């Protein structure tokens, strides 16, 4: 193997093994930031040694054992400064060659969960949670995260350093939340993963309408979480939602890179492997029973679209009912805008418009461009072209996405008349 080939192999091993190594180390050294640095050191050691020695048969165990020996050195050096370190170093020493700690056994699942809940801890800002989750659990490098979010690498590095510092300063315990706290903390985890997905699915910045790599990263994180928490229906709901939405990635972009909306998409271009996986995940969520949460409901809506072979076959009545249910568990004017769309299709544009106009009086939606594009669409169906054109223009002025703006301008132009 050439050096660069080995390097790429080590990158791949890092992606596969680093979350487990960091998760286990963080429990042993009781410090997520230190754990990440130790794992990073082990990775550097691999870069130095593997091109010569070859990639070990069990690279995860190699990284773990290297990081652990390094941990003992670092902690010994610090022990005069801090008694906590002395204690940890002693524990580590006695377990240094315990094979069960090198082999990722059943307990690694709990360590991974601890890492998940720490990276998505509410003491951190959303941006910090996203960066830390991609770094620690997704195995992405700082450069990769920066590229994905179109920000300078230094910004991401800074964000991660600050996040680790906050975790240490606020003494966030390395544990899985229990009892009633679990539900709210899980909400934060699901939100982080879905934020990552959405940045890929409907990019808020830049010229591209979609960034599939981020969608794949989010899907992977979601699937990891499902393996760790198989009994949580909302986890399966989130995966179902992401798999089904991701199935439309190719169809959402036209030949010129322009946005293509759901009902205009060529459904033959939908990815049926992902649809099938999404429907299986939704089924799993439903089997777990209980009241359907927001992700399960959103996945059910996505599934309605996925099951319809043509846009005309869409079960809008069911979709309107699901949006109503979603509005009950997660009230939001945005959900109501979508319910208006569904009602417009199921009953008629006048009914949809009625709901939209009620929403319009609520000022919260002032800068929300879909309100205007939906209103424009309903007005156009009712033949009120001039008003519709105005709404599309307003919506175009409000979106930050180039590709979407072009789509809205096009719709406005189509209504310009002869």
């Amino acid at each position: 193997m050439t050096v660069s080939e080995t390097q790429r192999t080590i990158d791949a091993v890092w992606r596969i093994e680093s979350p487990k190594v960091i998760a286990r180390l963080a429990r042993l050294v009781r410090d997520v930031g230190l754990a990440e640095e130790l794992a990073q050191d082990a990775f550097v050691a691999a870069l130095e040694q593997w091109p010569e020695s070859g990639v070990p048969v069990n690279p995860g165990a190699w990284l773990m054992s290297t990081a652990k020996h390094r941990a003992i050195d670092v902690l010994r050096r610090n022990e005069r400064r801090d008694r906590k370190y002395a204690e940890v170093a002693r524990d580590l020493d006695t377990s240094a060659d315990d094979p069960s700690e090198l082999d990722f056994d059943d307990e690694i699942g709990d360590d991974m969960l601890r890492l998940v809940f720490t990276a998505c801890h509410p003491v951190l800002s959303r941006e910090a949670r996203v960066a830390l989750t991609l770094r620690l659990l997704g195995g992405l490098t700082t450069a990769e995260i920066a590229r994905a979010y179109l920000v300078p690498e230094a910004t991401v590095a800074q964000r991660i350093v600050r996040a680790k510092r906050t975790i240490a300063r606020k003494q966030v315990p390395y544990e899985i939340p229990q009892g009633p706290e679990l539900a709210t903390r899980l909400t934060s985890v699901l939100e982080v993963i879905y934020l990552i997905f959405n940045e890929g699915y409907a990019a808020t910045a830049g010229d591209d309408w979609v960034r599939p790599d981020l969608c794949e990263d989010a899907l992977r994180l979601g699937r990891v979480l499902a393996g760790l928490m198989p009994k949580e229906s909302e986890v399966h709901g989130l995966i179902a939602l992401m798999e089904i939405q991701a199935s439309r990635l190719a169809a959402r972009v036209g030949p010129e890179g322009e946005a293509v909306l759901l009902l205009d998409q060529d459904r033959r271009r939908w990815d049926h492997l992902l649809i099938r996986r999404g429907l299986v995940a939704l089924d799993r969520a439903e089997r777990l029973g209980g009241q359907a949460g927001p992700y399960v409901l959103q996945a059910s809506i996505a599934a309605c679209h996925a099951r319809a072979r043509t846009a005309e076959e869409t079960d809008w009545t069911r979709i309107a009912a699901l949006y109503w249910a979603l509005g009950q568990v997660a009230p939001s004017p945005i959900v109501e805008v979508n319910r208006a769309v569904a009602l417009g299709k199921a009953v008629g544009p006048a009914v949809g418009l009625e709901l939209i106009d009620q929403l319009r009086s609520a000022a919260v939606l002032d800068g929300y461009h879909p309100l205007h594009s939906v209103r424009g669409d309903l007005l156009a169906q009712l033949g009120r072209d001039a008003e519709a054109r105005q709404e599309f223009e307003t919506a175009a002025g409000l979106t930050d996405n180039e590709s979407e703006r072009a789509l809205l301008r096009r719709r406005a132009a189509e209504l310009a008349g002869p």
Partner: protein
Amino acid sequence: MRFMLMLKEGTGPADGPSQELMTEMGKLMEDMTKAGVLLDTAGLASVDDGARLHWDHGKLNVLDGPFAEAKEVVGGYAIIQAKSKEEALEWAKRFMRVHGEDWEITSEVRQIEEPPEEWV
């Protein structure tokens, strides 16, 4: 990126895969699922019941199994999502390693092409 791991039929012990191999294989598949990598996998039924079709400039020939060259016969596949070809290879290597010393097998890793921009 997606890759297809095509697993060719190999040669091993006369009494087929050992219990240990099956357990290890199950564990690897579970690892791949838990890592969020494995999208789809299946084994193919015996090639003896399969058929080969050959098109030769307008002449169709259908040949029923079994066929001579077992090494070229695909016995199963796995579709995985990976960040790079090297990552796909790393998973494929793990698949090979669980077979231990008793087997000789071949597998092929191929990237699945993204759907073309436009197709009719």
